[in-house]
Structure formats: C-alpha cells, structure tokens
C-alpha cells in the first residue's frame, strides 16, 4: 500500500498528534506514505465566502496528486470532503475543468479528467485497505476500555457522491475499535456535529455543544471518545478546559483520542511516540504517559 499524503492546514499547523500517530502507526501496518512536496489550504473553509477560491485551491491539490499516480491519503475530514467534492464537480462539468486549468497553467499544473484521484480517509485505510483481519494480527495490547465513536460530519455527508461510510448508520469506526480490543456501542448523540464550522461566529455556543456531547458520552458509561478529524479533536480535546469553564462543570472531562493513537496503543507503541503528551484532555487517566 503506497499513498501520497496530503495533511492540510489543521494537522500540519497545530493538531500534531494526528500527524505523529499516523507517521508512527501506518508504516508498521505496511503503509508507505510519500509527501506531496508542499502543503497548502484545501479551500474548504473559504468555500463559504467564495466558492471559486475553494475550487481553485482544491483542484491544484488534485492536479499535483495526479502526478504521483498513487491514491491520495487525506486524514482530515474537511480536506477529504473538499477534495472529493471538487473532483465530483470537475468530473461532471467540463467548463469547470477549463476554468481551473487556465489558472493552474501558471503553476505548471493541470487537472486531467481521464485520471481521477482515488482519495482515501484514515478510516478507509484502516477498514477497507488494511482490513480488520490484518489489523487484529498487530494487536498486542487490546484496549479493554469503552470508547464512543465520533465520526465527524464531513466524511459521512453529503449523500450525492461516495463518502467514507453510511450517512445515518456508519459502522466502520466501531469495527476498527472492536478489532483493537476496545468496547463500543451506539449512543443517541453519536452523529451530532462538534460545530467546528461555526467556531468563527459562535465560539461559545460551539463550546456548549461540545460540552453537551462530552457530558452525554460520559454519562452513558464510555471511558473515552475517538475522533478521526482534527477540527473535531480540537473542539473536544484541546478546548476541553474552556468548555469546562463555560459550562461551569467538570462532568465534561473525558479522555479524547485520535483513532490512530488508539490503534497505536493497541499495537504496543509507546504513548509519547503517538503524540499522546500533546492531547489536552485527561488521556493519562487511561494511559501511562
């Protein structure tokens, strides 16, 4: 399994725990990652103010990825929807390809509609590519504790082009967690959004939303939460102290992990090699740092 990797902004500039754990875990599972050669915004947040800015930024990443001829591994949910949607749009509308390629000329890039990029998210690599049976063979320390899955919206929706899992009843993340010896189950708040898209405008409401979900997860008997998106992880993990202050409640305190950090732990990787000392939530309740 050889992939080109596109990290995007959040992972590469602040959510280092995701990058560190992917770089540590994937090669052990037989995945070879090669770098894109540069990093730039996928355009997704800017779609809200100017959709053409988004289409340009996303298309240039697709065009660069085409040069490598390998599937493109995109660990961020936002970048994943951004690139999938841009490619969907380009493949459907020739005039969009022409517009994009006119701009890309100056950068010596070109999107080729005859060579669409296969875009893969972390959950797809673990579940569909490596596969659960193979993953199980690497488990030396089954986790044992109970983990709530938080998929993040943008790998499940919209429904008009293929996404990572079913929009209303996804199962892949649970299957991965069970394969690494964690306990998990469905819960009513499972598909609720972390609100990251509104952080720009409604930071306090977003914090309360996250606090509400963390509280529910804890009350339902889970020991931890797993995410696969840097925006969700930042909201639930890095902002947990702020959430506690806003909600004036310690009932929101819960260890929050990247899925790849949990996979690494089950494989017996030393916690700091998975960036677990960078998590802000109390992961030390479950892991010896």
């Amino acid at each position: 399994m050889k992939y080109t990797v596109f990290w995007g902004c959040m992972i590469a500039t602040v959510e280092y725990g995701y990058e560190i754990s992917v770089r540590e875990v994937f090669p052990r599972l037989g995945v070879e990652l090669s770098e894109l050669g540069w990093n730039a915004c996928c355009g997704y947040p800017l779609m809200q103010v100017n959709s053409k800015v988004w289409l340009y930024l996303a298309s240039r990443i697709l065009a660069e990825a085409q040069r490598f001829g390998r599937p493109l591994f995109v660990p961020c949910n936002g970048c994943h929807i951004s690139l999938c949607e841009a490619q969907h749009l380009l493949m459907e509308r020739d005039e969009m390809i022409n517009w994009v390629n006119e701009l890309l000329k100056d950068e010596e890039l070109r999107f080729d509609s005859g060579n669409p990029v296969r875009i893969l998210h972390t959950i797809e690599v673990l579940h569909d590519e490596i596969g659960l049976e193979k993953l199980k063979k690497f488990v030396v320390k089954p986790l044992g504790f109970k983990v709530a899955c938080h998929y993040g919206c943008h790998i499940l929706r919209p429904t008009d082009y293929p996404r990572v899992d079913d929009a209303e009843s996804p199962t892949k993340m649970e299957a991965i967690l069970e394969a690494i010896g964690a306990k998990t189950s469905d819960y009513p708040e499972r598909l609720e959004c972390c609100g990251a898209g509104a952080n720009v405008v409604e930071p306090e409401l977003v914090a309360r939303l996250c606090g509400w979900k963390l509280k529910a997860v804890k009350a339902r008997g889970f020991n931890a939460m797993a995410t696969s998106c840097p925006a969700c992880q930042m909201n639930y993990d890095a902002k947990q102290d702020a959430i506690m202050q806003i909600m004036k409640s310690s009932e929101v305190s819960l260890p929050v992990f990247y899925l790849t950090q949990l996979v690494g732990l089950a494989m017996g990787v030393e916690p700091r090699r998975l960036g677990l000392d960078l998590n802000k939530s109390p992961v030390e309740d479950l892991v010896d740092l």
Partner: protein
Amino acid sequence: MLKLNETDRLLEKLRESVATLTPSVCYSCARCSSGCVMVEAGCVPHSIIQLFRLGLLNEIERGLWSCCQCLKCDARCPQEARPAMLILALRNLLVAHGSAPPKGYMVMLENVVRYATIQQPQEVMNKDFDFVSRNTLGLPELGKPANMEAFRLNLKKIASNLLEVEEK
C-alpha cells in the same frame, strides 16, 4: 442589512445560483431544523427555505453565518431541498455583493495568500508544560507551493472582491 431595491436583484441572482437545487419542493416538515445544532443561534433551516421562497432576504440574513455546514439538513431532507446549499449560495452572493464576511474568514483568506495555509505552524504545550514545535517534535518541513507568486496572483484574481489587488 440590504436596501429594499437591492433585494429583488439579489433574489434573482440567488434563484439562478440554486437553480439546480429544488428549495421550492420543501413542505416545511422541519426535519432539518429538528436536527440542527445551530437553531439556538437563529439559524433555522426550514425557515430559511421558506423566507427564500417568500423573497424575504433581509430576514434570512439573521443567523445566516451561524450555520456550521454539518450538512445534516441536506442529508436528511425527504425532498432534497438542500438548505445547507442554499445557505452557502446566499453567503457567497452577499459577499460578492459587498457584504463583509465574519472576520475569521478574512483572516484565513489573508493567511492563505501569505503562507498558503490558514495559519502558520504553531507552538503547542505538551503535558510537561513545554512548548513544542514541528521541529522539536521531529516532524518534517512541509514546504510551500513551488510558485508562490503565481499562487498569490491567482487568489487575488479570483477573490478580487475580498483582497486588494496590488498595482505594479
């Protein structure tokens, strides 16, 4: 707030930009709003659809930027009315028409022009209260696009309504 005489022209443009969507088929079952996490902030998807149908753009402006674009409403609508896409189209239209977007978007856009990413790599604190960076964590430099000048020029061309174009 939009001036009344501007509303009609904008409404026409909005109708054009969502022509491939079908907000007119909404029968207000409010399934979208019942699952929306931003209703509290004044963003009520089924109301937005109805206000659009009634042509009351000024009323939609309230709460418009609170939508977090989780796309749940789009996925769950039994009529495929696509409230989230309508919100996206209206945001784009208002910005193109000269409305200032929330500041955070401008900060991100200006950073992308400057650094290619929405922010530069940050130092973060670990559990030992040490500040660490990509470098101290042993993470490689990821680099910027090879031709930053062409990259910037393209962005300024596309977003000329938002970015000042430098005259040479």
